[in-house]
């Protein structure tokens, strides 16, 4: 029996000292330094912006379903929306083109930066890191609090775009100059500035989070929690934090340069000789490069896609293993493939720019790296299948969503190959094919994983269980309507339907697609309903859900060893880790249990240690 040397001064134990005295309401719930409270703050923030983003998506779908603004469904929904949105957005039951452009721009921005990212890298990173590695809190609790409040302010700034003259940003979430750089060309004035400022704040928030997560995982693991015994959510969050640290500063630089172009009259992205409505542009000397923005943006933007999918992969791996009652298939392969994705993720940004006018030789390079990055994703999918194989599958809501993730991510991964192929991309670039692809990855992928993870960790967050019955209703409604909205998008794309288009019925090759669009829009409203069911279930369960047992899912990781509610400082005694995180159905497990918790000493351990002393 190997002996484990305990450090004399236990890291993180000092938190116990100030964990006992009563905190005021402000310090306990609003300006809390406790990672668990911050996680829950992020949960509410992301849920709110999920609703906002979803509402904007429904505006987009309503317009696309009935571009002629007729039909009882359109009219009734438009009159509901007129109550929410101002006259400048919807007038006389007609969604205005200005608002349409703002709606899809802000939909993507809210979903990416204020829903999916804070769900994954705010809520779950904060909640799980200390609890799963056996630490008392984050390494820098004040930085952690600052990270949340910066994200909160950023969200408000972004939201305020709707209330300024000229409306919210409408140049797409990618905000390509020169459309985004020159207000006369887009009609958007302050909205775009607020967009840039808000993303800068949210970027700083992400960086503070990333520094904190990396430091905590490196320094504060409990004794025995070696790297190869880390639960996969922690691995995925750690790798993602490194990605954030390397990618976000590049976005920050690009945002600042574009801000300068808009407000100080610089010309980083504005070339010489530009015409505005036929007459030369004044106020800018020119000499800038339009493509520079695209390189900077996508150098951040592609790692960003992996920032939003890697943690989701980690969460899914955990849930699949627990409810298969089986060790994760190929733990090392999972870690290596995530690292591979992170590494290759920095070399594929050019695949967003195949048709941008970039040198076609670069297109070849980026195609090869893009094809290669599909390999680690394939490895992960096969390993998830391997995890299910031979298991003892428990059909909980969390498990349904994790399986939904695998099924939908497979579609999103495969549809990506079409766009990776440069010649095929010539046709489907900037069509609905790519919109379908990204939603299979980000909704069917990331968001399904987030839903699953909320059902799974809710008992530890709030000490109560969520309703399984309504969870299943949520799953089936979401799963069916999700496919109803997004699968036909591939077909629209193959038909050649351009994205970000207000009315496609004027085109001969697209006008016949209205019924299909209407069907998708009805499905989108059902999908919205399913998310409402989920949020009601969540809020109801916080107050009225049945009291959760300490370890409702019979899981092995450290968070399930602590009684609810978890006190500030988490562990009364520094936990000690004896084995990997996925010891399910192991033959040497003592007793009748099919799980062997990480912190339970092997039989005879105490006596071995005593003899060692």
């Amino acid at each position, binding site marked *: 029996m190997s002996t484990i040397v305990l450090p004399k001064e236990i890291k993180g134990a000092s938190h116990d000292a100030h964990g006992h005295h009563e905190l005021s309401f402000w310090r306990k719930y609003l300006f809390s330094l406790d990672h668990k409270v911050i996680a829950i703050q992020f949960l509410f923030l992301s849920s709110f912006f999920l609703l906002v983003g979803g509402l904007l998506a429904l505006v987009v779908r309503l317009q696309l379903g009935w571009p002629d603004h007729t039909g009882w469904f359109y009219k009734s929904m438009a009159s509901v929306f007129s109550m929410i949105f101002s006259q400048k957005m919807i007038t006389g039951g007609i969604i205005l083109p200005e608002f349409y452009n703002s709606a899809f721009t802000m939909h993507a921005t809210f979903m990416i930066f204020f829903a999916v990212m804070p769900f994954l890298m705010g809520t779950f990173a904060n909640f799980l890191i200390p609890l799963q590695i056996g630490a008392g809190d984050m390494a820098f609790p004040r930085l952690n609090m600052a990270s949340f409040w910066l994200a909160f302010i950023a969200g408000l700034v972004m939201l305020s775009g709707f209330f300024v003259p000229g409306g919210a940003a409408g140049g797409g979430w990618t905000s390509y100059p020169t459309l985004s750089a020159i207000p006369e*060309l887009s009609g958007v004035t302050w909205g775009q500035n607020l967009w840039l400022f808000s993303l800068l704040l949210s970027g700083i928030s992400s960086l503070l989070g990333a520094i904190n997560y990396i430091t905590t995982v490196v320094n504060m693991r409990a004794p025995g929690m070696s790297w190869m015994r880390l639960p996969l959510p922690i691995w995925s969050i750690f790798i993602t934090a490194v990605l954030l640290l390397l990618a976000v500063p590049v976005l920050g630089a690009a945002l600042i340069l574009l801000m300068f172009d808009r407000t100080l009259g610089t010309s980083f992205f504005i070339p010489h000789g*530009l015409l505005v409505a036929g007459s030369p542009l004044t106020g800018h000397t020119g000499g800038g490069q339009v493509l520079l923005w695209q390189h900077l943006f996508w150098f951040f933007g592609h790692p960003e896609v992996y920032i939003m999918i890697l943690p989701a992969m980690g969460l899914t791996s955990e849930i699949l293993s627990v409810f298969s009652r089986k060790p994760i298939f*190929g733990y*090392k392969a999972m870690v290596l493939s995530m690292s591979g994705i992170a590494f290759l993720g920095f070399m594929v940004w050019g695949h967003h720019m195949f048709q941008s006018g970039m040198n076609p030789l670069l297109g070849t390079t980026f*195609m090869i790296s893009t094809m290669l990055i599909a390999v680690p994703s*394939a490895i992960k999918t096969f390993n998830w299948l391997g995890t299910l*194989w031979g298991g003892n599958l428990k059909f909980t809501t969390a498990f349904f969503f994790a399986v939904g993730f695998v099924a939908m991510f497979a579609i999103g991964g495969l549809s990506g190959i079409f766009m990776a192929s440069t010649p095929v991309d010539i046709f489907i670039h900037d069509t609905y094919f790519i919109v379908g692809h990204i939603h299979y990855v980000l909704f069917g992928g990331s968001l399904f994983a987030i839903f699953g993870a909320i059902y799974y960790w809710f008992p530890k967050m709030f000490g109560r269980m969520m309703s399984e019955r309504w969870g299943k209703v949520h799953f089936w409604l979401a799963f*069916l309507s999700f496919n109803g909205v997004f699968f036909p998008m591939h077909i629209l794309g193959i038909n050649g339907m351009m994205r970000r288009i207000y009315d496609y019925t004027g085109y001969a090759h697209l006008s016949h697609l209205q019924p299909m669009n209407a069907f998708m829009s009805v499905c989108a409203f059902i999908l919205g309903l399913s998310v409402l069911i989920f949020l009601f279930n969540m809020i109801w369960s916080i107050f009225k859900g049945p009291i959760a047992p300490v370890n409702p899912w019979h899981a092995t990781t450290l968070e399930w060893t602590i009684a609810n509610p978890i006190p500030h400082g988490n562990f009364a005694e520094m936990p000690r880790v004896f084995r990997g995180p996925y010891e399910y159905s192991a033959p040497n497990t003592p007793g009748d249990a099919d799980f062997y918790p990480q912190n339970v000493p092997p039989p005879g351990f105490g006596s071995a240690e005593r003899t060692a002393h």
Partner: protein
Amino acid sequence: MNLSMKRGIQWLCAVALAVLPSAVAAQAVKAKYPDHHWYSWWMNILPDNASTYASKIDDMFDLILWITLIVFVLVEAALVYFLWKYRSKPGRKAIYYHGNNRLEIMWTAIPAMILVFLAIFSNSLWSEIRSPNRFPKDAPVIRISPRQFQWDITYPGPDGKFDTPDDINTINQLYLALNEPVQIKLLAQDVIHSFFVPEFRIKQDAVPGMQTAVWINPTKAGEYEIACAELCGLGHYRMKGYVHVIARDSLDRWKTAQAPAPVAEAAPTATTDSSKTSK
């Protein structure tokens, strides 16, 4: 009994939820397009192809479609089968198994080989379409300078040079000769636009401050639409142009008919010249 009834009702609800919107949609389609068949979206959904490389791109698309379709069916079938086969039952115990290195190597190597093959295969077509030194030699050049929200098109005229008085200018109307390669130089005036003709399977961003180029060899006479594929502002959705693919002699006749236009175009140039001389 009670439980199985409950299950049955749950399943019925689920099926109804799937079927209802589809039925409503099918009804709507029937009302609007009486001659439309439900499968017309699935069969021949790619637009007609009308350029030399269009069918090659379609073939590439089909190849990837078949490969991904097979992988898709295998993965999803395995998933569903495992869900059914290994569902929890009383007395069932999961096997204790951490993975298999031989399998890992296999499912790394096989996808990698398929993907590299696809990359190499794609690249020969990519360079055929896009490589600057493989552009058709001596093909006539047309200049398109899109702006919000129209396509300004310029032919060099009889002297073969741009920016001379005999240039032929049109807005939103592009005339091409059947079966003759042509080069199109794109330079945006204000924001990024994207030149997209679905039937030619061509799409290329037109960027301000930077010239981009494509070539087309149209293979079918007819009229096609030019769409803008890059968000360019409020009128993006209606930035539409037309391509007319006509026989060589009709094109020549059209060009001659356009000849008076350059005179009107040349007039302002003449006045500026005279104003210069008057100084």
